[in-house]
Structure formats: structure tokens, C-alpha cells
């Protein structure tokens, strides 16, 4: 069965893989720090900005911060989508590949849209 091998380079995979790699890189570099400082040491007493309403509001008023958070969260969704779509095959689920891929990337797109919506609707500073 050599027919499938000769269909030429896949047109869409590089796109998803690029998002996967970018998401993997960003989360690898930044996620552990966020989780540790904000959600574990924060409750333990670390004066993280996100524990305080005023400071969170001031910090997220900055458009660069919003851009960063958008990149971090939505790329983490695309990273998950591409990984997960192949992960189910590791468990022996070899069928319905296009459907599974569509579900995964579709969810990631929805997640990214949701992230954009959240970050755009953040209020600015009081003054």
C-alpha cells in the first residue's frame, strides 16, 4: 500500500505542529513558575499580585501582560490538542482520526477565543 505515501507533503500538519511546538515551549518556560508562585506558595503567604484584586487589576491593565497571557493560555490549548489527538492512538484508539483531530483542534480554537474574550473584557485601571 504505497499510494498514501506519494500524496505529497501534508499541507496542514506543519501549522498545527508549529502551534504545538510554540505552546510547548511557552508552557515549559513559564507554567511551572505561575503554578508554584501563584497557586501553591501564594496561598502559603507569598505576596503574589494575583492574590490581591487591586494589584491583579493594575497588572492585567497592561496590554503586554494581556498579550502574554493570551499567548500562554491559548498556545497551551493548541499544544494539548495536537498531543492529545495522537495520545488517544497510544491507547489503541486508531479509528475516527479526522473526527478526533477536528474535536481537539476545534476545542483549542474555542479555548483560544474564550481566552481572547476574557482578556479583552478585563477592566482597565480605576483612574
Amino acid at each position, binding site marked *: 500500500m504505497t499510494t498514501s505515501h506519494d500524496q505529497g507533503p501534508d499541507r496542514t500538519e506543519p501549522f498545527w505542529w508549529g502551534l504545538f511546538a510554540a505552546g510547548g515551549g511557552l508552557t515549559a518556560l513559564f507554567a*511551572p*513558575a505561575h503554578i508554584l508562585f501563584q497557586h501553591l506558595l501564594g496561598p502559603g503567604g507569598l505576596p503574589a499580585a494575583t492574590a490581591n484584586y487591586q494589584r491583579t487589576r493594575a497588572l492585567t491593565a497592561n496590554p503586554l501582560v494581556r498579550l502574554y497571557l493570551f499567548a500562554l493560555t491559548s498556545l497551551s*490549548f493548541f499544544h494539548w490538542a495536537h498531543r492529545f489527538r495522537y495520545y488517544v492512538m497510544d491507547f489503541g484508539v486508531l479509528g475516527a482520526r479526522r473526527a478526533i483531530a477536528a474535536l481537539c483542534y476545534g476545542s483549542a480554537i474555542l479555548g483560544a477565543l474564550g481566552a481572547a474574550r476574557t*482578556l479583552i473584557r*478585563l477592566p482597565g485601571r480605576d483612574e
Partner: protein
Amino acid sequence: MSYARTEKGWVREIGAAPAGYRPADQPGLPSAWWRLNRRYTLYMWREMSSVFVALWSLFFLNQLNQVRRGEAAYEASVAARRRPAWIAFHAVTLGFAIVHSVTFLLAAGKGPTLRVGDRRVPERAVAAGAFAGWAGASLLVLLVLLLGGRRDTDEAEGAAG
């Protein structure tokens, strides 16, 4: 011995654990093939990590959503996340995030072929650079979290991560 009967004939299935003869397994890929060696197992945990990191992103965005609702709502969400269930979730997620970071940054050494002049940058140097980047990025996040959003500091520190 682990064999499966395919249309091309008997096929020996992927590596079984050592220690001698074992009775034949059921046909098809051994269902828990990832238990056959430590690297396969680590690979499966690594893939799973993307689920938890994505979940964490979702919850983080959800928390940010509360900013719009005002101080009371936001403080409530912060207080909720001090409960044991949330702490447990974040502890587990941190474990997964670290697995992801370590495996991903090590793999980063294998991806690009970087050259300086005529010499190729060795893999270990690329990986070392990636880990240094991880340390630097974490420090940056810590600084922004500690210093950010305070009224008596100027805007310079509100930079992106």
C-alpha cells in the same frame, strides 16, 4: 512470548519485559505496552501532562474572569483556591508541568540545527541554554508577581513575561 496473528502472518509484538519465558498474551498490541519499560512509561506521563497544563490555563482564565465582576467576586475566587482540593490539583499539575518542562527542554536540543560560524552547536549546549531560559523565565514571573500592580512603583516593571 507475545505474538499476534495478522493478515501477513504471525508478528511478534513489541518488547516484553525480561525474566524469561511468559505464556502467550492475547492477540493485538499488549494493551499496557507502556508498562514494558521505564522510557515508554515516562513518555505516557509526558503526554498526559499537556492535559493538566491546559486545564490549569482554563482555571486561570476563569479566575481572571472574576476580575470583571468586582473585588468581592475576585477575592472569593482567590479564597476558594486555598481549599485543599485546589491545592491538591495545583500540586499535581505542578508535577506534570515540571515533567513537561524537563522533557520538552531536553528535546529542544534535538530540534533545530544551530550553527555558529562553521561549527554546529552541540545538543547539550542547546539544552543547557533552554534550561537557563527556564530559570530566567521563572525568575521573571516571580519578580512580576512580587512587584507587579503596586501603585508606588512605576510602570516599567509591568512588562510581559
